[in-house]
């Protein structure tokens, strides 16, 4: 019962926090200089979405490696849950990025290295699920999907760090710029950090929900067998 109460409280907390973030993004943070109109405010949503997409990718790797080591079906369910959320968040990051690109540079899509990185992340997630769909045996599905996730993870740094160095990028400096300093108005920074925390909270909420569901299904299956 206390567990249930704790979960309930935590959900209300994330909800209230996100309301504050939304309010802050539109009314508390000042208008950014050097951007068209109020377009820069999308940063409070776009950056956390991209961050969660990458976070989900890391959770997916961790649970995949654990599955390969221990062969616990719950780890496979965790990896799949992380990938599913990663897919949703990378789609949202791509869409918010495109909206911003349209306002700033007049085109939804201009093959910017960072756009390509997020699209490849999206393709990796899509391929991951295409692979899972094509394997009927649960154990084999878990093992092969985990292997692909690991392989994809080790090639991603090349896309994120090497390729943008070869090509010129329009993308604004990432949160911490090349000089190694955080170059942002302090109120904007507060809202952005709060948004990062909030979106991470949403991710944790959805992720634990999926894992609890998977746990129940696995336990039921085991009960039926014995």
């Amino acid at each position, binding site marked *: 019962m206390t567990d249930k109460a704790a979960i309930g409280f935590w959900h209300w907390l994330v909800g209230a926090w996100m309301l504050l973030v939304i309010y802050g993004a539109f009314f508390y943070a000042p208008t950014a200089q050097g951007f068209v109109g109020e377009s820069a405010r999308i940063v409070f949503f776009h950056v956390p979405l991209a961050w969660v997409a990458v976070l989900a990718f890391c959770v997916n790797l961790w649970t995949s490696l654990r599955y390969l080591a221990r062969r616990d079906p719950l780890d496979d369910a965790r990896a799949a849950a992380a990938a599913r959320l990663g897919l949703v968040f990378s789609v949202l990051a791509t869409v918010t990025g495109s909206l911003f690109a349209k306002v700033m540079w007049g085109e939804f899509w201009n093959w910017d290295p960072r756009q390509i990185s997020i699209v490849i992340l999206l393709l990796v997630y899509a391929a991951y699920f295409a692979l899972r769909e094509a394997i009927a045996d649960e154990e084999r599905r878990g093992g092969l999907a985990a292997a692909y996730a690991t392989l994809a993870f080790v090639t991603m740094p090349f896309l994120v760090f090497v390729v943008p160095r070869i090509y010129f990028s329009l993308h604004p400096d990432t949160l911490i710029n090349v000089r190694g300093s955080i170059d942002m108005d302090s109120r904007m920074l507060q809202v952005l950090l709060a948004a990062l925390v909030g979106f991470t909270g949403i991710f944790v909420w959805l992720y634990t929900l999926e894992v609890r569901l998977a746990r129940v299904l696995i336990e039921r299956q085991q009960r*039926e067998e014995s």
Partner: protein
Amino acid sequence: MATVRITFSGLGKRFGSRTVLKGLSGELRARCVVAVTGPNGSGKSTLLNLLAGVMRPSSGSVSYLATDTPVPRHRWHTLSGVAGPDMAVYEELSALENLRFFARLRGLARTDGELERVLADLGLAARDARRLVATFSSGMKQRVKLAQAVVHEPAVLLLDEPSSNLDETGHDTIAALVKSLRGRAAVAIATNDPREMAWGDERIQLGN
């Protein structure tokens, strides 16, 4: 040739929600033929796959002991020979090339003469040894498959329905093969053929 003993305990295998084997324990000893019997779907092939190490058990464990020293999993393939209906040899290679390949994979360099003798023991004439397997009848393919399993003189031989696709003389060939290996190897045969069951010194009965 070291003698090898395989022990297995609490062995179980599930495919999704279907439990095929559960809590099976026992052992295969050198100089002993075990007949594995049971109706279709009772897990005969699954048991052999688990013993060969080509399938991961859902529960329990299998270990190979060479004179009581455990053999690591990655060395099992040098000690065991397996033939089963879901296995094939390379059709685009000749029988001789197939055998040479499977011997080399186990780190053995065999002369053509030695390989031809293995094939001859299984009833394949020397002129057939150099023909492509693609031109063979299913019975001849079965013989090459069996040759592949014994080319390295394994200490453990696992045969799944060995006389499928074979005629009467083929059946006698298998009988001779089992007899020749009986003196030194641990043998398990999955079968429902009463004559083959009779070769077994011991029997593992699966299913209810």
